[in-house]
């Protein structure tokens, strides 16, 4: 059986981690375990959060116990079949790069001693995978950023990054679903709503989804704008 560590996160949550497993293997394991726990619908689990290499389960102590949850997780792990991610059609996300929508594009280009156009071409050429959803409702942490685009976070975070902003933070890229403080370099903005509470599926992206960015111009941005 897999080596797992299990630690309490306060008195109403616990976190499962798998030391010694990395990369795609741990991603696949977390995704499959997350799906299986959701399908099993054990009594008392009130929330599930898949991290980069952890799964956090929130629970109601009146309906279950820490020990019962450990037993259930170990049972699940003993029979869990880990399957690789099925390559689905990528979700195409339109992005207006640079200008007022991407105030840090020039800085990112300067940091890599290349042109803004080259940065855009490289960012839009990639196919990304949603590693996890967190930080804000519907915020995707995307894997697959070309090493040439890795850029340390801004020295001082912005107090308000506009909704739809596409950013680069270290080796990750992501999209801000809501206007919020943020320290990532903003290189463009999408007109798509990443999260809409009234949609049947409020979050546009789920862990495991693949993503491609399609460059658009400001006129197309205004035409396709879904955000208020």
């Amino acid at each position, binding site marked *: 059986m897999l080596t797992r560590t299990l630690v309490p*996160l306060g008195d109403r949550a616990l976190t499962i981690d798998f030391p010694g497993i990395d990369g795609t293997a741990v991603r696949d394991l977390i995704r499959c375990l997350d799906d299986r726990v959701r399908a099993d619908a054990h009594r008392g689990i009130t929330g599930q959060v898949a991290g980069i290499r952890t799964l956090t389960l929130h629970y109601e102590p009146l309906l279950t116990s820490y020990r019962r949850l450990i037993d259930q997780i170990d049972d699940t792990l003993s029979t869990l079949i880990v399957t690789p991610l099925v390559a689905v059609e990528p979700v195409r996300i339109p992005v207006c790069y640079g200008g007022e929508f991407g105030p840090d594009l020039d800085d990112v280009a300067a940091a890599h001693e290349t042109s803004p156009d080259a940065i855009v071409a490289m960012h839009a050429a990639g196919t990304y995978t949603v590693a996890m959803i967190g930080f804000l409702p519907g915020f995707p942490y995307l894997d697959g950023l070309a090493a040439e685009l890795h850029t340390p976070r801004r020295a001082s975070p912005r107090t308000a990054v506009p909704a739809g902003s596409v950013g680069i933070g270290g080796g990750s890229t992501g999209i801000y679903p809501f206007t919020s403080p943020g320290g990532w370099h903003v290189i463009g903005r999408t007109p798509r709503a990443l999260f809409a509470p009234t949609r049947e599926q409020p*979050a546009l992206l789920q862990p495991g989804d693949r993503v491609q960015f399609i460059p658009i111009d400001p006129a197309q941005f205004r035409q396709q704008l879904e955000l208020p």
Partner: protein
Amino acid sequence: MSFIIRQAGIQTTVQDLGRPGWQHAGVPEGGAMDRVAHRIANLLVGNPDGAAALECPLGSVALQFTAPALVALAGRDIAASLDGVTIPAWQPFRAETGALLALHTGCRTSVAIAGGIDVPVVLGARGTSMRAGFGGFHGRALRRDDILPIGEPTPLGKQMVSRLVEAGRMIADWGAGPALRPSYAIQPTVRIIEGPELRWLTDASRERFFGASFRVAPESDRMGFRLQGPTLALTRSMEMLSAGVTVGTIQLPPGGAPIVLMADRQTTGGYPRLGDVIAYDLPLLAQLRPGDDVRFDTIALDDAHTLYRHREHDLSRARHALHLRFASSGHDAR
């Protein structure tokens, strides 16, 4: 039925017990910071625990009723008046049409009204998610002249009102005694379950973390309380991958000043987690103002769960007692 905000205070919002079940999509549970005060205020006016109520953090708040209402206040250090007459907390009262309720002090006062605040349900809850701008009253803090709808009181709430009207009373002769309330303090010690990264503190820092008191910084809000105190250091610099956090998680950012995550926290975080404040003690923390001090102590998980069950037992007993009191018609139950 409705009420009008005459003075909005600072960051006054509509809150309930939050929206569980959406954390996988990055939606924090949210809900009232002091869930116990929220539940007791609702209990006293015959509402279900999770009915939407006002959370008034700081500053003076005034509201005016457009129809008679049954209201209860709960929280720490409350001074309030109805049309200029001082009214108690933890004890419901009747407000007539046009009456003006004013909160003068208090920290995160829950104002529950029989029938609850009837704002639309978004993702299963009525609470305000301010960062995402949905839920509550148009997804935002309340402003002057906002008009908030009140729902239909429960049969119990209606019986409570009739009983008060018949007796000619404004202030109810039932309430929540001190034993049921959280034991609020200006300098509380709150208990934590040790977090996965606590062992990375240097010995001196660990001693300071549990020995010193920490002050709630001014830049604290529903997302988190920033703490000022001795700087804490780790034995090595840690590269953390984003992982789940919860309400009460004490994070240690690189600067060495801890942050306690509160109701509107994000679902994941990337800083070392020193520990998590237990549910039983969260109300004590939620009711602190900037400038107040807090100390930390550890508790075993089993003991935390025992406290949790005791509180739930006490609350359900109080609810049962209120139902019994109003179950029989007439005056014989008084």
